[in-house]
């Protein structure tokens, strides 16, 4: 599903060049459940962004679902993201002026899906996450757990092959956090969605069947359970 070869990503911080990713080789098969852990500044988020096609590597090649996307232009990358990748963020990133329904609808809108089909799919997604009663509430009227569930509904509405989660429970209490984990793990187990979770919570990271540990922009360990 995801094939990275010699991926490097450098950032300039004033005079210094920081090697956020210093040569990553990684293969992730479809349907895997991978956690990426590591201390702050180890390159977790950078790796996630590269995998998510939000950031371009400075060197190396990337094949997504068998297609080399390294040289894709902005529009092409946007399409690949739209159709294949779902995101769940630590800070939810719901658009505050839109209702839960409208937030979930955004990817469908970006993909020019007809209105009727949009309504049907959004309602279905909200119902499956037990959010039907909150459909017309704005994010500030929802609890943290509800917000993250709306975000999950949005991430999965396009039925992506890959779901990327960046500290998905980082901003939730333990009960909501567990609930969110169960939902995304279920997507992996039941629907075969490739799940990649970035976290520095080792309890959460150890739930994954494959655990990557990053240190200084390199893969330090790659354990399978």
């Amino acid at each position, binding site marked *: 599903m995801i094939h990275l070869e010699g991926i490097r990503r450098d950032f300039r911080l004033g005079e210094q060049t920081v090697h956020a990713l210093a040569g990553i080789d990684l293969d992730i098969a479809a349907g895997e459940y991978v956690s990426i852990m590591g201390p702050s500044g180890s390159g977790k988020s950078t790796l996630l962004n590269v995998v998510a096609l*939000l950031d371009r590597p400075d060197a190396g090649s990337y094949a997504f679902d068998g297609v080399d996307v390294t040289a894709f232009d902005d529009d092409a990358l946007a*399409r690949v993201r*739209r159709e294949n990748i779902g995101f769940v963020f630590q800070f939810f990133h719901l*658009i505050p002026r839109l209702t839960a329904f409208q937030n979930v609808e*955004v990817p469908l809108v*970006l993909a020019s899906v007809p209105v009727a089909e949009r309504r049907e799919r959004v309602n279905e997604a909200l119902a499956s996450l037990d959010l039907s009663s909150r459909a017309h509430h704005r994010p500030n009227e929802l609890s943290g757990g509800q917000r993250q569930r709306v975000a999950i509904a949005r991430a999965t509405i396009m039925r992506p092959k890959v779901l990327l989660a960046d500290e998905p429970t980082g901003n939730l209490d333990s009960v909501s956090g567990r609930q969110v984990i169960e939902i995304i793990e279920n997507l992996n187990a039941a629907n075969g969605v490739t799940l990649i979770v970035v976290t520095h919570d080792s309890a959460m990271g150890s739930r994954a069947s494959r655990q990557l540990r990053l240190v200084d922009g390199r893969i330090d360990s790659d354990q399978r359970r």
Partner: protein
Amino acid sequence: MKMADSTLLAWQAVIAHKFRTLLILLAMGIGVAAVILLTTLGETGRAYITGQFSSLGTNLLIVLPGRNETTGGAPPLLGTTPRDLTLGDALAVARSPYVERLAPIIIGGASAATDQGLVRDTTVLGTTAEMAHVRSLNLSRGRFLPAGDPYSAEPVCVIGITILNELFRGQDPVGQRLQLGDRKYRIIGVLSDEGVSVGIDFNDMVLLPVAAAQQLFNREGLFRMMIEMRSAGNTEDAIADVRRIITDRHEGEDDVTIITQDSLVSTFDRILSAVTYGIGGIGAISLVVAGILIMNVMLVSVTQRTAEVGLLKALGSSSRNIERLFLIEAIILSCSGAIVGVSVGLFTVWLMRGMWPTLPIHAPVWALVAAVAVAITTGLAFGTLPARRAARLDPVQALSRR
């Protein structure tokens, strides 16, 4: 992404940021309203002034002594002073088949004194009985200057309403004497209230027979002649004929300037139109200022919505799409601003029309179109930069912040 969806999304953003929207509507509205009001004022002034000139009467020719002309070579030293326009010239021109009426004019200042000792500086206009017809003057009392031999310097005068009020308050002036300089004249009539037309205030004026004025000012030359043509159709022929008559009398020298009513009006029309465009341009500057405000507010908006832009990109929106969203937002804002401005502008014009019903107040259509076009163009132009900036935002950084 579909256009309708983009518009809806942009519209929701416009609605959500109420204060920002209000600010932009205000700026754009003021700009557009300013253009409309300023051009309306200019246009009204133009219409008013050209209207005043037209009220002079149609078929009017004005003959001035001297000729406006530039020639090459050294300035001649001798004999270049134009000949005076004399009463003889006037009588000769009056016999032209093209001329219906002719009124010679001598103008000057004098102090008018009554027997009671009241004194007032006033304008003295020497002319003939024809003047009453040429300028459509009416009398409130007595009679106008006597017709007949223009060379006879009968010591009579006709006074304007201001002179009546200032010097003969509550009295009947007809038959009384008025001293101008060292000469005395018998008042034979009072003009009715004529108002000011083209800078000549007939109210504050004493009219004398032209020969009497020549004596008073000790000057033979005429200030000018006003000619009412027999018909309006053949102005060119009339001018040629008048010119021929005067040239004959001036020993072959064509040394008069002839102004037609039309050329006068159209000259003023041109000048005042230019003035209107000018002040319209000043108004347009305020539109540009509004455009810059839109740019600033949109830039702030982009910064505030970094996360949202990053999110849209993460969800599969291309940079072009983001740029379009912000541009649509700018267009919605500037169009609404233009609508507000047009409404305010037209409403104010309507109010002004209610306040001054006699003035020809109307908003020029070209100004409406131009103001709205400029508003939308500036909105677009100044919306592009923030939209570009939004499109270039790095989604990675945008999403890493809260």
